[in-house]
């Protein structure tokens, strides 16, 4: 990695965990035992929650879920590499990162149910949570919109002599959006302290990466904008941390933005609304199951002797219990009050919203919520 300074773009893929399972000391971010355990636990917790949420959706208890199966290393590693004062601009697939950064589990599950305790007041679909206190952005479904915002946010921080960095998440498909190019260009011109974190998971719903770009790599797209790009094994959590840390440090030093391409794979469907068997061969998935980021990391921890089978059992049982408890609470929580519909459109509701609120409250109720 030292032979690969973040000033130019390379095709090689940065890895820490080598094929024989040993870490490459030149790149290893050197986490403490406590950090390793914390990181691993967060990855497992993410998967346990994912699995519960998919089940809930199948049972009709929540409307939707968009999961991170197979992408936990990219999602958790990048968030782990941020410093306390940095900010995240998520897309819709990074709830695990938000939890790691401080979104309370209960609030996330409340969002999945769109109940009265949901921080977005039941206004958005599941997985469209928010948490300013965790320095985490507000999620929008339209692809790409968060990218130029992360550029402006980081730029503002620099203008105000604050060394905070903004990391923005997006997928391979999102690099085709108008916004990607606009954001990269602004970041290049103004050298903003932004980290562009591209989760290249192979697919944009049913569209494979070959339909998104004719470039050899996504990292290479940075060249045109004067933003260095780096490719990292997105299923190697230590490599993701190493690369993201360097990008964050570089940004904080005033050297500008970095584009990280994390190579990973969307093992599940796009969301609970999608059946990937319609468009991709199961055989394509198999090799990625072998590269499962959680298994891989656990083997590493086992070799280091910092993780045991009983640790594993305790963690899974605990994670499962926590998510079940949060679900039980969220499911019992009432939906948002009718009048909340009219709050936050403006800071203060103008006359027409006051009238419309009165009209709704005075009128008959909808026959069934759903």
């Amino acid at each position: 990695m030292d032979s690969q300074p973040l000033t130019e773009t390379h095709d090689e893929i940065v890895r820490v965990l080598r094929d024989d399972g040993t870490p490459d000391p030149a790149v290893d971010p050197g986490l403490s035992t406590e950090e390793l355990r914390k990181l691993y636990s967060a990855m497992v917790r993410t998967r346990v929650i994912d699995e519960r949420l998919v089940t809930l959706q199948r049972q009709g208890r929540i409307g939707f879920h968009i999961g991170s199966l197979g992408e936990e290393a990219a999602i958790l590693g990048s968030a782990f590499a941020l410093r306390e004062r940095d900010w995240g601009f998520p897309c819709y697939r990074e709830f695990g990162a938000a939890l790691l950064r401080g979104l309370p589990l209960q609030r996330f599950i409340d969002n999945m149910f769109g109940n009265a305790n949901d921080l977005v007041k039941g206004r958005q679909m599941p997985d469209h949570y928010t948490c300013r206190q965790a320095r985490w952005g507000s999620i929008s479904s339209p692809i790409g919109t968060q990218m130029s915002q992360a550029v402006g946010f980081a730029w503002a921080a620099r203008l105000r002599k604050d060394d905070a960095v903004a990391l923005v998440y997006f997928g391979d498909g999102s690099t085709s959006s108008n916004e990607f190019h606009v954001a990269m260009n602004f970041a290049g011109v103004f050298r903003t302290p932004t980290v562009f974190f591209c989760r290249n998971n192979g697919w944009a719903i049913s569209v494979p990466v070959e339909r998104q770009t004719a470039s050899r790599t996504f990292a290479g797209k940075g060249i045109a904008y004067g933003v260095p790009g780096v490719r990292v094994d997105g299923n190697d959590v230590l490599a993701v941390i190493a690369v993201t840390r360097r990008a964050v440090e570089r940004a904080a030093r005033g050297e500008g933005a970095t584009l990280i391409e994390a190579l990973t794979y969307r093992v599940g469907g796009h969301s609970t609304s999608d059946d990937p068997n319609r468009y991709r061969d199961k055989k394509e998935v198999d090799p990625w199951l072998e590269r499962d980021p959680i298994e891989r990391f656990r083997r590493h921890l086992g070799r280091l002797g910092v993780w045991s089978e009983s640790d594993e059992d305790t963690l899974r049982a605990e994670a499962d219990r926590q998510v079940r408890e949060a679900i039980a609470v969220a499911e019992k929580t009432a939906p948002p009050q009718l009048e909340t519909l009219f709050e936050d459109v403006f800071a203060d509701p103008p006359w027409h919203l006051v009238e419309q609120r009165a009209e709704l409250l005075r009128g008959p109720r909808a026959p069934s919520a759903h």
Partner: protein
Amino acid sequence: MPQMNMVQAINDALRVAMKKDDRIVVLGEDVGKVGGVFRVTAGLYDEFGDDRVIDTPLSEGGIVGAAIGMALYGMVPVPEIQFADFIWPAYDQIVSELAKYRYRSGGEYPCKMVIRTPVGGGIRGGHYHSQHPEAHFIHVAGLKVVCPSNPYDAKGMLLAALADPDPVLYFEPKRIYRAAKGDVPEGEYTVPLESASVAREGRDVTVIAYGAMLYEALDAAERAAQEGVDCEVIDLRTLWPVDIRAIEASVEKTGRLVVVHEAPRTCGFGAELVSLVVERVFFHLQAPPRRVTGFDTPFPYTLEMEYLPLSHRILPALLETARA
């Protein structure tokens, strides 16, 4: 005659048209192998191949911009925007380019295409999978905007739109994609654009609706009938250019008007419809026209059924208008 739902009827219209006219190409996100996230283009990729049913990179601006180029060359593109909520990256191409091409080139470059996109709420889609943005397009000179409410019209209007010389936005009410079923003739037929249909005849109040809300208006009209109020429900089908004669004729008969739409009230299409009626048949009116619409808030998730102008909100408006 085969029974179809809306999805099947639209799919059938595309197949019929593509067989006959090889200038027609479908392009968009996930329209190919998987056949669209709502399965509207299912089977077309296998039948017509990758050159005519094209999965594009994820850029609505690119999809519509490229479609404009194809249209200028002489093809007939049918871009799909996966949800109308995601049409905004293409809005510049639609408003600044597509809508004005014929005019700004002195008629040298007509630009014909049909942009298909699912609209509307009631499917647990929250802010960004629920909106019904017709007013943003009707306001733009040079665009035709349609919104069928049943499989027969869906097929016939899509075939009419494909034969139309101008750009057409074809809005598909996704809440009734599978719920609205009916007989659909095989092969080719058209339902002329600019023709509204009278979905229920009545004497007391004219109710204008379209898309998924038509069924709510019809349900409210049945309930009003039990209270002795006889409503005439007009299904606009084509929103712009609207069938003004059908509206005038109905209001001349009833003297009362209620307009229903999902989109927010302020500057919604209802505002235009009410203005037209007030300007043109004012002296026939016996009560103030009413709008029953979505509220002037973003489209919500949990409370979406309270937000939508469903039958329970339409009924009181009908009764009050009838008795005003």
